[in-house]
């Protein structure tokens, strides 16, 4: 069984991103870029399926400009077998990413596609579900456990009230949540090996997909600041403040 994993290049999760002074966009000059943490979990899950003998090949795909090859190499170092870059500008809307991934799915015919549930830049939480609709596949989103059994995959999902289990016919989509696994670190020999692995590059035109835009970003700004608080000396003062100053408890 082939597994396709989508990976995205995003600002590292430790970076506190700010809006540019002119409000046109966020300031990503000289900030550290990484593989989206949820995508890293997706890669780990795919590699574990291969190690368990369930998957035969793991293909990592990323949509973006040339710099995203770095994240594809990261996925290859973590154990993916080969990579695909769909060359676009760095910013592409989730619907278009889903269409490009659908075209890659048509080409590669994977039985399972694993994506992160959201990327920590746009916080959209859409691409996996959109791909599911376009490819007419079942989806196990926000997954905390994935078990392939015959021609089905059972997925335990994190929902608002707890956990839900669904069974999906293969081929299917999985989007990862935080508790699915703990990704490994790439070893130096594997990082070296990853450099030699196959990485194919396609353009949207090769895949017959039009890169459309449905949303215009008008401006970005900092959220409203909270006004500075105070330090209380003990629990008694805290309770007093909550009662008499904030008047939030009685």
């Amino acid at each position, binding site marked *: 069984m082939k597994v396709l994993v989508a990976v995205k290049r995003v600002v590292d999760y430790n970076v506190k991103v700010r809006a540019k002074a002119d409000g046109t966009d966020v300031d990503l000059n000289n900030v550290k870029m990484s593989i989206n943490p949820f995508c890293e979990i997706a890669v780990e899950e795919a590699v574990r399926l291969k190690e368990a003998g369930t998957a035969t090949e793991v293909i990592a795909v990323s949509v973006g400009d040339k710099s995203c090859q770095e994240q594809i190499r990261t996925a290859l170092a973590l154990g993916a077998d080969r990579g695909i870059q769909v060359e676009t500008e760095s910013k592409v809307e989730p*619907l278009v990413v889903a269409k490009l991934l659908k075209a890659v799915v048509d080409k590669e015919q994977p039985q399972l596609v694993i994506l992160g549930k959201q990327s920590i830049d746009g916080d959209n939480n859409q691409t996996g579900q959109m791909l*599911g609709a376009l490819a007419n596949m079942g989806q196990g989103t926000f997954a905390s456990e994935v078990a392939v059994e015959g021609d089905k995959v059972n997925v335990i999902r994190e929902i*608002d009230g707890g956990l839900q289990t669904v069974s999906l016919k293969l081929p299917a989509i999985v989007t990862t949540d935080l508790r699915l696994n703990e990704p490994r670190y790439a070893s130096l020999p594997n990082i070296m090996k990853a450099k030699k692995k196959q990485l194919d590059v396609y353009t949207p035109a090769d895949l017959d997909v039009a890169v459309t835009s449905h949303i215009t970003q*008008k401006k970005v700004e900092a959220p409203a600041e909270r006004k500075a608080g105070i330090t209380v000396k003990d629990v008694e003062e805290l309770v007093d403040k909550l009662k008499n100053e904030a008047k939030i408890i009685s």
Partner: protein
Amino acid sequence: MSTLVIAEHDNNGLKVSTLNAVAAAQVMGGEIDILVAGANCGAVATAAAAVPGIGKVLVADNVVYEHQLAENVSLLIAEVAAGYDNILAPATANCKNFLPRVAALLDVAQISDITSVESADTFQRPIYAGNVIATVQSTDAKKVITVRTTAFDGAPAEGGSAVIESLDVVHDAGISSFIGEEVVVSERPELTAASVVISGGRGMQNGENFKLLDGIADKLGAAIGASRAAVDAGFVPNDMQVGQTGKIVAPDLYVAVGISGAIQHLAGMKDSKVIVAINKDEDAPIFQVADYGLVADLFDALPELEAQL
């Protein structure tokens, strides 16, 4: 202009998050209908019809919609969407699961997690864990939107008398099935709707110590939340996680106990009215957003707090 709001429910009752989505729809203006997709969900339809200002409540009551499987419900919504300019749903785990599928079927973008309606086609939404607020304009004729529930005060639940219309539209994609659910039952208010939330982090050390929060939560009528670290460590279940990738809360009072205040956690609670932080490390970033900070060992502070409330 016409808007279809997708009801969040459990077949027995309408969830209040639906009322937050209705409130956003009201800001957009025009006519508003509600769609209830479920099985044996008549009580939900009745509740939805009581929301003031609703034109029609459309009910698709069929076993294929019982667990609101995304594969089936998205086909239904995409079909019903033909008659509307906007499709709105609260940004709950359930709606976040199926709504992007609807958008893709309609070949339009989804605008996730809006926090304000600027005009009929322009909205604000937080990006980068809420460190930045983006104003975005949609160029799609049909808009598919999820609504951050904490950003819109819920519309009233009573006083209306909308027409209930049953829909005979059955879509079974046949590619997914529901196996089971482990739902945490709690006497406490729902995390996302509670007016007081008290959350514990890694500093709580284990699940047993979360009991220290119980007595305080009882006295304040609070819901109990947690940081990712506390959930990952297995102290408490996943549905208690507050943050960028967990639940978004904005209660009148949020008490963070043994939580350092990582940006991903702040993203889920920094719009709370009053924030209290209890942490033994005076340099913990949580103090930067706290209205009242108490530098103390939580194992001393919590019993004292319970006693003094």
